């Protein structure tokens, strides 16, 4: 296998019994609507943290963190990473849990490449499955540094792409392309039909999101093409129609391609960030709804994957609330950005 996924997840559903037992206990620490509502009503950041301290890990995670956006971000990211690492220790889960690890790894690689190109100091490191210093050295040209083959190829492709066009966007695109290729490989090898379909939905949403962003940023179609590679799920022509088509045709195109459910109900289409962020929220909520019915399963990988996505979403929601309270954004404005919880 040339992907990061070294083996398939076990078909035997009882292989997940131990980890499901663990996550059943950990699920008590997930966010719920009541807690979110209470945190939203908090008057400031300190009060929001006090409300959220009902979650068993909040005090431990936030206590020593700097009470500013980057400090909170780092603390929450590290908390998710620690949880992920703990769960990935279970050999049965590792093949599917790697999806969440890849999200961090590829984001970190983008940052490392950008730091290398802008010659910025490597002052902050974020959680990753690889050693940051090694990755930095590899990016700087020390090709004998150990890095997984998938990452080596992605970095080489991104640097070569940058050499050609000298546009930082191409790095984003090529790294996203490499990530999405991995997601597809993961879906192709996944024995669980539920997780496989979820990964395909994620894959398609990622392309739709990129197309809408490209339209908003008025990215040239040739540059946008760098994110795409031939796959059976979404055609480049369809994405190009969104990127280059007329504004009034966008909704029509989205509906035509079967994404009606993702359209925001109360937001008129405008080529602006609000529409895009509403669409992104709906995509995340769709993915959450997709996994929610399987949380009650006693066996199989689905509840584990569902829990990891729930935790991932929780971290995002906590970040939205805490940032919102820090910048004193109105309750309604924060609420409009929050994603649905795993447990209502």
């Amino acid at each position, binding site marked *: 296998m040339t992907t990061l996924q070294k083996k398939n997840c076990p078909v035997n559903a009882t292989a997940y019994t*131990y980890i499901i*037992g663990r996550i059943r*206990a950990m699920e008590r620490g997930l966010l719920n609507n009541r807690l979110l509502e209470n945190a939203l009503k908090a008057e400031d950041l300190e009060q929001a943290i006090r409300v959220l301290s009902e979650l068993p890990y909040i005090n431990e995670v936030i206590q020593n963190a700097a009470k500013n956006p980057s400090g909170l971000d780092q603390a929450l990211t590290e908390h998710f990473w620690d949880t992920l690492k703990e769960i990935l220790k279970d050999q049965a889960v590792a093949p599917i849990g790697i999806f969440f690890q890849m999200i961090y790894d590829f984001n970190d690689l983008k940052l490392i490449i950008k730091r290398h190109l802008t010659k910025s100091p490597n002052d902050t490191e974020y959680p990753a499955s690889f050693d940051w210093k090694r990755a930095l050295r590899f990016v700087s040209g020390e090709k004998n540094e150990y890095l997984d083959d998938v990452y080596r190829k992605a970095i080489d492709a991104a640097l070569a792409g940058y050499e050609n066009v000298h546009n930082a966007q191409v790095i984003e695109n090529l790294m996203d392309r490499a990530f999405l290729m991995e997601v597809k490989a993961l879906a192709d090898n996944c024995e669980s039909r539920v997780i496989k379909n979820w990964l395909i939905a994620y894959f398609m949403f990622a392309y739709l999101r990129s197309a809408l962003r490209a339209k908003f940023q008025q990215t040239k179609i040739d540059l946008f093409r760098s994110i795409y590679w031939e796959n059976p799920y979404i055609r480049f022509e369809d994405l190009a129609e969104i990127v280059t088509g007329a504004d009034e045709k966008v909704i029509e195109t989205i509906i035509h391609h079967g994404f009606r459910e993702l359209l925001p109900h109360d937001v008129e289409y405008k080529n602006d960030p609000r529409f895009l962020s509403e669409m992104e929220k709906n995509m995340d909520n769709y993915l959450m709804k997709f996994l929610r019915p399987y949380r009650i399963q006693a*066996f199989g990988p689905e509840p584990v994957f569902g829990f990891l996505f729930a935790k991932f979403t929780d971290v995002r929601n906590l970040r939205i609330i805490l940032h919102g309270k820090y910048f004193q954004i109105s309750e309604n404005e924060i609420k409009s950005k929050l994603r649905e919880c795993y447990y209502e």
Partner: protein
Amino acid sequence: MFIDGVAFALLGSALAIGLAGIGSAKGVGIAGEAGAGIMTEDPSKFGQVLLLQALPGTQGIYGLLSGFWVLLKLGLFGGTPVAVTSAQGLQILFACLPIAIVGLISGISQGKTSAACIGLIAKRPEETGKAIILPAMVETYAVLSLLATILLLNSIQL
């Protein structure tokens, strides 16, 4: 002829003890895995988890009981073996099958139900009573098969 009959009867006894034992071992193992998972996060659940983990262990006991019943019937404990024809031996073998087969399947099923209910306890400790009832329902069929085996064994005249 004497040896053949005893051999069939002993095979029945071995199947009752062995298959029901395998069912219990698997069931207790499955429930134990779930229990270990929960106790990794919350060791205070040990008491409730142990109770649920022990439930699938009963099939093994029923199998052992049936197996010993056969040995008693054969007089092997007393040192004076009873003469058993092939037909009688086969009758004993068939009489042992209910607990052997049902013990194997119900042990595994009960283990799975127990594991699921251990998950229930992790999320809702106040529902321990209900969590015990659900796997106990599976027990019904193990008890019925034990009853069937005992009645069948008792009906065989040696």
